[in-house]
């Protein structure tokens, strides 16, 4: 059978102009035309030669760290922006949900917004009419249907928006992390709806940071890194590949870093087990550990703060540690953030590092490196170390009294 979606050698180039505003300024354009100056631009390839095929009824998860090109790929698939090279052959209609509630207008009522939003997503008017009651049921806002949207709570708006999107009857559905919002109960409802989408034979492309969700919803997975497909296979393997990639960054360096001041930099970021003298030994649940790195400053920084963020592999922030503000003289420093008071469940974790001076950002590295905390067989330290009972294992003081 022919694949429903063929992506062939897609590449996307962005011209990064060296100008301040996001959009063009007429005066600048005219002036530069008179100056016969070549506009200073830099080419940036957000995607380089992406190819893959999707069979009808498959569900594919697309994962990758920040800046890997996931959003650009989604935008090309949804026809919002054209590719610079390559082509995509689609044998079905594509509907994309890059955001819930696109085009919602605060002055219109809930009913009116359902019709407008549905039409924007590509539904026919008759289709919306027949599914109207179902959508309203799903959203649970039937009481406020004729109230202008501006009087809705943000949760209600979200539920209404997802209700419309969930009833799209289109062959290929492209979803960006729209699920990362809403309360727990509603998320469960949406998840059920997504599983229904795949079981009814429609094709799903799902982009997420939530690796657990990708594993449970998608059969297949594609891992992107720096604009290239580096792995394509089952979703379990893709997630594993991605986790390994994050661990490897320790040696290869992070994929993205934002530097705002060239006179300061960091290197040699390591995660160390403080219970072991051996370098690179795995960290067991209950071990004390630290994050160490070297700081090189070639000028002076007032009110300097270094911050280390601890993030779960699904991008949930767990903890941010700040150094005490100090005036930093030029030189080389070594910093160590010691973890000896909070103990984490086994699993993969990521680290981000940020430097600032006088509340101004100097350097920010979102996915600096990833490391693993390994399950230990020694149950005497912590009775339960399952990630499902939470990231933090420290116990409360439980006082039990007989009344």
């Amino acid at each position, binding site marked *: 059978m022919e694949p429903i979606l063929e992506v062939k050698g897609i590449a996307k180039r962005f011209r990064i102009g060296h100008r301040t505003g996001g959009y063009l300024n007429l005066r600048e354009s005219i002036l530069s035309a008179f100056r016969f100056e070549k506009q200073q631009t830099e080419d940036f390839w957000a995607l380089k030669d992406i190819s893959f095929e999707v069979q009808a009824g498959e569900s594919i998860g697309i994962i990758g760290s920040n800046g890997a090109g996931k959003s650009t790929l989604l935008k090309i698939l949804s026809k919002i922006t054209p590719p610079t090279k390559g082509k995509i052959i689609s044998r079905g209609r594509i509907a994309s949900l890059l*955001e819930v509630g696109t085009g919602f207008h605060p002055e219109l009522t809930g009913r009116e917004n359902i019709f407008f939003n549905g039409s924007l997503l590509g539904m026919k008017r008759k289709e919306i009419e027949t599914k109207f009651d179902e959508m309203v049921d799903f959203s649970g806002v039937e009481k406020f249907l004729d109230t202008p949207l501006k009087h809705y709570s943000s949760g209600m708006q979200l539920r209404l928006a997802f209700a419309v999107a969930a009833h799209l009857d289109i062959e290929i559905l492209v979803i960006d992390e729209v699920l990362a919002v809403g309360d727990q109960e509603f998320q469960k409802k949406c998840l059920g709806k997504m599983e229904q989408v795949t079981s009814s034979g429609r094709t799903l492309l799902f982009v997420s940071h939530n690796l657990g969700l990708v594993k449970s919803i998608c059969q297949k997975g594609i891992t992107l890194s720096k604009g290239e497909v580096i792995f394509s296979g089952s979703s379990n393997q893709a997630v594993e590949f991605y986790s390994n990639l994050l661990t490897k960054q320790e040696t290869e360096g992070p994929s993205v870093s934002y530097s705002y001041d060239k006179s300061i930099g960091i290197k040699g970021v390591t995660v160390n087990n403080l219970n072991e003298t051996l370098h690179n030994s795995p960290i067991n649940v209950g071990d004390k550990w630290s994050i160490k790195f070297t700081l090189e400053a070639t000028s002076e920084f007032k009110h300097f703060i270094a911050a280390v963020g601890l993030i779960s592999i699904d991008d949930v922030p767990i903890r941010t540690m700040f150094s005490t503000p100090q005036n930093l003289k030029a030189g080389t420093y070594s910093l160590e953030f010691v973890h000896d008071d909070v103990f984490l469940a086994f699993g993969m974790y990521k680290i981000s590092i940020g430097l600032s001076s006088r509340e101004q950002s100097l350097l920010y590295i979102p996915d600096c490196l990833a490391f693993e905390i390994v399950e230990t067989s020694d149950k005497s330290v912590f009775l339960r170390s399952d990630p499902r009972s939470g990231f933090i294992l420290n116990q409360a003081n439980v006082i039990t009294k007989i009344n």
Partner: protein
Amino acid sequence: MAELVEYTIKPSGWQLFNWKELWHYRELFYFFTWRDIKVKYKQTSLGFLWAILQPLMMMVVFTLFFGKALSIPSQNIPYSVYVFSGLLIWNIFSSGLTSASNSMVNSAAIIKKIYFPRLILPFSSVLVALFDFLMAFILFVPLLLYYHQSVSWNAVWSWPLAIVISIIATLGLGSWLSALNIKFRDFRYVIPFLVQVLFFLTPVIYPVSLLKYPILQYIIVTSPMYAAIELFRFPLTNASPNMIFLAISLTSDVVLLLIGILYFRNTEDFFADFA
């Protein structure tokens, strides 16, 4: 189940109109227009009355200053009727052009998140202006009765034709300006000024014959709205229009439409990157 469609996403190419696609999205035209009309009048207490009040008040002002004080000739019909008929059709252009030019920038959030033929946006802005025209037209009828103004049967073809021409004129310039506006935000300030200048350079409140030099007349009739206004007034004045003047104005309509749509189509793929 819906029909299966096969299509390709490629680096952008050239095409004047993608009729098949526009037809496919016809309902969205309706919904955009319907939304804009609703939103436009929702917060106002007078609502649709504004569509009538605006040209009415303009008419009163122009009648007092130009008709009474300056006694500008009005081709043998009452000056009030002359001005109101001109303003009626002119407003399709002026309000349509203003909202079409800003339509892209105002919908930037939607453009960045979802695909649809972008031409729908300026087009539906013009349709909203057409709706205002129909509202104001309701007032035009009693005005004609009050002044005992006769309307010849030519109105049957010349009025619809005038409306079609004004839509073409508005769409051409409007789509061009909307594309320029998203690329160069400076145009936001150019547009009101441009509309104002065009208003006085188009024979809306005075006849072309008022200009003494023929060369000036030829310049004035290049205005894209000249033909529409002339044809709209034809059943009232019964003065047969100057065919050369009409041809000049119509040529400028077609040229503007081609430039506008071509420029729009050539840049629309990158709107999401600019917005």
